[in-house]
């Protein structure tokens, strides 16, 4: 028995040490340095909370938070609406179901960065051409070049790619619904609209919760597609929080300052996830 206990210990201790060294220890360091003026090299001093206070007065950081929230909220809502519709469609009695399912899931296996580069080409060359041809004003120039519209381009790419995974989750949810419930509703004379709001939606609610939370968290961490599409531009119009931390931390000598920013970012993500879970789970119970 003692032997067995030791064996279990041996199974987990190496993983624990590795995890601590390469995950927890950097977190602790990050929090530690956020209270200093460390540049990433050389000497440093404690500066108390001044890094944190500065983040709240830094236009660039606030801009990054504003853009990231706007992008994440719009993308999360769109992705969930579109993927739920696609999932319901794929779950209906349709032809070519397997091929269509495979097509809609395809974006999930592709590199976000490379997809971003491909869309960048489409936004730069294809859409303006179509826009000029059809005389549509806002399409006839590159939307990524406009500080007011560039974020829409990033939303389009994020939605194009993330819909794949969320659709699959909703499909999994729909497959748990017993067809007899619909048959009973048919007998009661329920229309498609009533069937969706009274049966489908309440029954996939747990999947809706997970999708909202996971999608939101992923979009709040957006990095790859922004590097590919705009590099944060024009100006800093589409600079996400991740990109700002990366840039400031590695290129701007702001190791300590961006560590403070990262701690705030972490708190924001956890807070949003918890609020979402609370609110959405309460709806589920109803």
């Amino acid at each position, binding site marked *: 028995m003692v032997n067995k206990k030791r*064996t279990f210990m041996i199974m987990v201790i190496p993983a624990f040490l590795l995890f601590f060294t390469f995950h927890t220890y950097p977190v602790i360091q990050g929090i530690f340095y956020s209270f200093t003026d460390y540049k*990433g090299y050389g000497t440093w001093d404690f500066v108390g909370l001044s890094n944190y206070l500065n983040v709240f007065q830094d236009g660039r950081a606030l801009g990054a938070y504003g853009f990231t929230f706007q992008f994440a909220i719009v993308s999360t809502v769109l992705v969930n609406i579109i993927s739920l519709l696609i999932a319901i469609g794929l779950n209906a009695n349709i032809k070519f179901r397997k091929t269509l399912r495979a097509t809609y899931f*395809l974006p999930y296996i592709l590199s976000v960065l490379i997809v971003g580069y491909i869309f960048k080409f489409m936004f730069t060359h294809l859409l303006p051409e179509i826009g000029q041809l059809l005389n549509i004003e806002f399409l006839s120039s590159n939307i990524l070049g406009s500080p007011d519209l560039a974020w829409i381009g990033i939303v389009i790419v994020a939605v194009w790619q993330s819909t794949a995974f969320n659709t699959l989750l909703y499909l999994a949810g729909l497959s748990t619904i017993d067809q007899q419930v619909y048959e009973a509703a048919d007998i009661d004379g329920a229309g498609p609209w009533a069937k969706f709001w009274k049966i489908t939606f309440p029954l996939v609610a747990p999947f809706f919760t997970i999708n909202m939370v996971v999608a939101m968290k992923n979009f709040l961490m957006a990095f790859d597609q922004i590097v590919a599409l705009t590099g944060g531009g024009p100006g800093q119009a589409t600079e996400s929080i991740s990109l700002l931390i990366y840039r400031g931390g590695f290129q701007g000598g702001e190791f300590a300052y961006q560590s403070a920013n990262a701690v705030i970012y972490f708190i924001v993500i956890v807070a949003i996830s918890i609020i979402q879970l609370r609110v959405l789970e309460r709806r589920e119970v109803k």
Partner: protein
Amino acid sequence: MVGNKINWKITTLLILGGLFIILPLYLTITIAFKTPQEMSGNLFALPESWSIQNFLDAIEMTNFFQALGNSVFVTVITVVLVLLTHSLVAYAIARNMHKKFYKFLYFYFISAMFIPFPIIMLPLVKQTAMWGMDNIIGLAILNAVMQLAFNVFIYVGFVKTIPKELEEAAIIDGASTWQVFWKIIFPLMKPMHATVAILTALAAWNDFMLPLVILSDSSQYTLPLVQYAFQGQFSTDYNLAFASYLMAMLPMILIYIFAQKWIIGGVMRGSIK
């Protein structure tokens, strides 16, 4: 829902929507075969001749096979490490959940799912550079560490569904805990191994941020990182760039075409957990 009648309205809508998914890929393939002169014509047209010159140029310019080798290396090592170690850790945790230490360990690992990468990025890069881990081996190890939270979560869920009686019988026959794991539990975990392997391989293959900050030597760059590094040199030569993008995506696309049922099933299994 209405008997067995095929719903053509929905089928048509889904096919139209599917075109939106296919269009960027269609453009990638055709542009990769076109010449720069053809780019001024109709962008939707098929290439006049299917010349592979763009691909040959891209292979030479980006040193494609080196990058491919790096990507394959990182992905394979990561998957092997993850399958062997994460399943083991999850087994030990799942069978000792009643003990405080293992319960703590479980929540400790899982809490990492909520920690955004940027918070550990800056210290981690300093640390890996100092310890000579700024290479593809270091990258594979870090991948395994980053994936631990999610994998332990789904493996533990799975181990809980395996009846303990199987192990008890083996122990009575004189098997050690190690033997029980490798001979009984590990093979039983097969469906979960498939899910974990697919998700881990996709994450490792397509990852951009971690290789970007960890790798210091450009001869060790993985495929996505190479596309990033060559942006300046591709400049406006979209034919060359798209040939390079296509080659970087092709291995996963080919695997997907042949194993899509398996991949979708695997991801779905992971998502229901």
